């Protein structure tokens, strides 16, 4: 209190005025609270609704925020980076995980190094990673290829004079295996032939098969094993069509830069792709789901469902279906085993199961007939006894994968890439979004994409020189070759793109004059040489960077300044004449990224509906309460309360209810989130696994969630008191005189 003299009333009286105002407000609050207590039922109904709404808001927004954060971790950490830059000349918007109609059509950056250099001038940019995402068909060797490979190895050892006493037996078993497979190939073809017309059968191929199956062929094998092997490899193996065809989704990138920037990447088998070399790293989940022996994979999945989701074989139809499918694909296993291995398998299974059955298929049937009781035992027998005899994966580390894709100009291109290792993203092990992606070197990616790398252009030049090819204009070429116009689709010439800077790039400019230089190389007898050269070729950083990239992942030093940096990149592009378009991780993720936005929309609508209902109910309750208090309000008016005081009284009341129950609801919601955060929400599907960025979502609470809930609740309670307040304001002091009769 100011000790000022009464002669100086200025600040003192203002202070007193303030205090009296506060006293009045206190009275209003007291009145409000007393009134709320007096009509408990109304308060409870209104409060209950508000509480419910506040809980929904807190829990909903906290969950979504947490999913948003975990998704951010997933997307940023596995593919997107903080933001993505792609060409503004692109037809489609970038969608890292594919859009409605497959991968988006992006215009390439012809020279990534320019983009990289430009982006690195921005102070907030920490790292840039070149990318190109595509899908293609891939094939690994089939069962016959592998059997022949082993056979060739054994033959070589024998010819080298290996003294191993086991060798003759090995050789015999492997020969029998190959013979058995060739029989199966013929049986397959006959089955197909029964469904097709006779004429579609290739007579030469049938003759080859017949020759390979003749006893004389096998009796004569040892006379010239290498010649016989070549015949089998070249004439028979291609007929065994069921060689594993795979679909592989890959990101072509600088593997070293990729692994450094996406630090959640860990190699779990094999090694990283050595610096500057070609190769591919397969995603672990992809490897497990698509390259593993189907029966083994199904057993793994049944086990996982039983252990993680507590499902029972006896009750779950999906598990039963998987078990049945394993039973129907016993041939998949028997075909892999040569007679020696089959014998071993029979012996092991007879002992482990145990069983007296001498037949392998019957033993396998017994092994794969699983129930809740025997599953663990059979699973162990499969992996401990049978698996060592099998090729569990159709693609092995160190092997080459042949990847075939349609290039930009529309012709089929195939590239052999060595599988260096298997990787996964920590925390995203079970997510198909992250785990089905493989990492490929940029050079191979560019080959598949359809751009010529400098060394390939060089090789073609060499080849042309060797073959006496001269550069010819198209018109002259026709004349020079045929003296007549060529039929459509006939080879024309390949010409360096006009105005192309230096030897970096060559583009096949005309779709009608396509040449597959790969075919040319192979036709020229250089195929093996070239493949070998390519596989061991080490590319310099300049070669890697001065070439095509489709999009660029950018990591920021301060991710909170993403919007600002996007702006800066756009300006940078304009200044440097580069068609740069930058989008944040969420936009870059395409539909997947929209999930959160969509969920927020759904939550918003739900909250809106809840609060609309709340509004009506609260409004109703307050109108009734106001009508019950007509005399009281009239009395207050009569003894001198202004209208605005009545208004204030009702708003204070509404605010009190809103605040009290809103806070209570927010606290309840906070408690629920804490509880859920402690227990965690299990990611029951692989999509959830990605959204949760791990096996469980542990949602956290932000102050913002609580503040938002309180805010909404307050607004709603004040809104809902407008009509009753208006009614109350119209109550005249005369109402005080009304008699209670």
């Amino acid at each position: 209190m100011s000790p000022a003299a009464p002669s100086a009333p200025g600040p003192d009286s203002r202070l007193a005025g303030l205090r009296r105002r506060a006293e009045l407000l206190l009275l209003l609050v007291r009145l409000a609270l007393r009134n709320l207590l007096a009509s408990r039922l109304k308060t409870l109904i209104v409060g209950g609704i508000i509480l419910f709404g506040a809980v929904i808001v807190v829990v909903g927004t906290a969950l979504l925020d947490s999913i948003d954060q975990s998704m951010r971790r997933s997307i940023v950490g596995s593919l997107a980076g903080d933001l993505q830059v792609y060409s503004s000349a692109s037809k489609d918007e970038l969608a890292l995980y594919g859009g409605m109609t497959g991968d988006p059509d992006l215009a390439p950056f012809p020279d990534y190094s320019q983009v990289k250099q430009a982006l690195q001038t921005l102070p907030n940019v920490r790292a840039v990673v070149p990318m190109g995402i595509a899908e293609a068909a891939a094939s690994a060797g089939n069962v016959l290829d592998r059997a022949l490979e082993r056979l060739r190895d054994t033959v070589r050892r024998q010819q080298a004079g290996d003294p191993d006493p086991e060798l003759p037996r090995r050789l015999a078993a492997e020969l029998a295996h190959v013979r058995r497979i060739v029989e199966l190939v013929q049986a397959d073809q006959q089955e197909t032939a029964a469904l097709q017309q006779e004429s579609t059968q290739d007579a030469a191929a049938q003759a080859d098969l017949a020759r390979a199956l003749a006893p004389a062929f096998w009796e004569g094998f040892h006379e010239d094993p290498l010649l016989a092997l070549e015949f089998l490899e070249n004439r028979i193996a291609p007929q065994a069509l069921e060689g594993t065809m795979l679909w592989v989704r890959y990101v072509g990138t600088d593997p070293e830069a990729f692994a450094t920037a996406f630090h959640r990447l860990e190699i779990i088998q094999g090694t990283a792709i050595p610096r500057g070399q070609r190769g591919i790293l397969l995603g672990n989940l992809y490897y497990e789901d698509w390259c593993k022996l189907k029966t083994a994979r199904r057993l793994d999945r049944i086990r996982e469902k039983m252990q993680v989701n507590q499902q029972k074989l006896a009750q779950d139809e999906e598990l039963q279906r998987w078990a049945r499918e394993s039973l129907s694909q016993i041939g998949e296993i028997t075909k892999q085993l040569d007679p020696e291995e089959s014998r071993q398998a029979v012996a092991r299974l007879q002992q482990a199961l145990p069983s007296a059955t001498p037949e392998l298929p019957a033993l396998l049937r017994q092994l794969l007939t699983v129930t809740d009781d025997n599953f663990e035992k059979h699973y162990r027998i499969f992996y401990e006894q049978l698996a060592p005899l099998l090729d569990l994966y159709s693609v092995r580390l160190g092997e080459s994968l042949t990847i075939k894709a349609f290039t930009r100009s529309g012709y089929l291109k195939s590239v052999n890439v060595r599988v260096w290792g298997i990787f996964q993203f920590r925390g995203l092990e079970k997510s198909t979004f992250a785990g089905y992606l493989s990492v490929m070197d940029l050079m191979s990616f560019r080959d598949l994409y359809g751009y010529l790398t400098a060394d390939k252009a060089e090789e073609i030049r060499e080849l042309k020189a060797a073959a006496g090819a001269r550069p010819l204009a198209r018109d002259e070429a026709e004349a020079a070759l045929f003296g007549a116009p060529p039929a459509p689709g006939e080879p024309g010439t390949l010409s360096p793109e006009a105005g192309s800077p230096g030897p970096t790039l060559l583009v096949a400019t005309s779709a009608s004059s396509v040449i597959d230089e790969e075919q040319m190389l192979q036709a020229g007898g250089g195929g093996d040489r070239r493949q070998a050269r390519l596989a061991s070729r080490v590319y310099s950083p300049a070669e890697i960077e001065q070439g095509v990239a489709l999009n660029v992942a950018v990591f920021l030093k301060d991710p909170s300044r993403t919007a600002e940096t996007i702006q800066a990149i756009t300006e940078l592009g304009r200044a440097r004449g580069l068609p740069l378009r930058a989008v944040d991780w969420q936009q870059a993720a395409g539909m997947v990224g929209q999930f959160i936005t969509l969920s927020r929309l759904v939550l918003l609508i739900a909250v809106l509906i809840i609060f609309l209902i709340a509004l009506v109910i609260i409004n109703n309750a307050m109108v009734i309460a106001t009508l019950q208090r007509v005399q009281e309000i009239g009395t207050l008016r009569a003894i001198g309360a202004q209208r605005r005081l009545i208004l204030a009284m009702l708003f204070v009341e509404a605010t009190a209810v809103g605040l009290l129950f809103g806070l209570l609801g927010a606290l309840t919601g906070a408690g629920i989130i804490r509880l859920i955060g402690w227990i965690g929400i299990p990611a029951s599907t692989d999509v959830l696994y990605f959204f949760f960025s791990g096996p469980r979502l542990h949602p956290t609470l932000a102050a913002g969630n609580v503040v938002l809930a309180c805010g909404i609740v307050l607004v709603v309670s004040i809104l809902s008191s407008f009509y009753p307040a208006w009614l109350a304001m119209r109550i005249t002091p005369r109402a005080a005189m009304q008699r209670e009769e």
Partner: protein
Amino acid sequence: MDAIVELESVSKDYHLGKVVVPAVRDVSLTVRRGDFLAIAGPSGSGKTTLLNLIGCVDVPSAGTVRVAGQDTSRLSERALTDLRLHQIGFIFQSFNLVAVLDVFQNVELPLLLQRGTRARERRTRVMDLLEKVGLQDHLRHRPTELSGGQRQRVAVARALVSRPKLVLADEPTANLDSATGGTIIDLMRELNRNEGTTFLFSTHDAKVMTHATGLVRLQDGRIDPEPGPLPPVTAAAAHLAAVAAPGA
């Protein structure tokens, strides 16, 4: 003695749908400071309307009502409210205490609304009045915990706490038994005498009327000039000089 209320040819009509109901017709009346005046008449004779007009709760359809020197028909809604707050105290037939406030808070309410008095002074004044109405031991009681007579005492204290020039009481004893009603009227009379507060109350109880220093009889909205059994009332001036003037 100065007039605190002056009515000149006041009429008030109510509109019930398309029907015009005349509640008060051509009433002229002067109330002077210190009066203890009763308004009598059967139900529907216009007693409440007359009190409403004097209490600035309503404005006349014709004529002028002057309260504490101000013409109510010229005042805004807010100014009327202010006039009620500072010049007039109200006592209602059904007490009209705020149910959720206790005795002390109910009495304190007008002072809080006035926003002019400090807490300490408010307390002194509230306690003083509660002592006068004999409820100093019931400060923290809620209205529902009190008898009818006690409630009306609280109402009397509330009406007087802001030291109004005029207290209007609409049938203050109608909801009480006659003995209790009598004590309330005695209390009012006592305060009238000791504090000099002017009282104007309506009643249809003949016994209550005997306490009044003047009587206005209403019949069909008009003042009935016929002298009653009690001290006569003139139509022009309702003041009875025969009654002793207040001491202070």
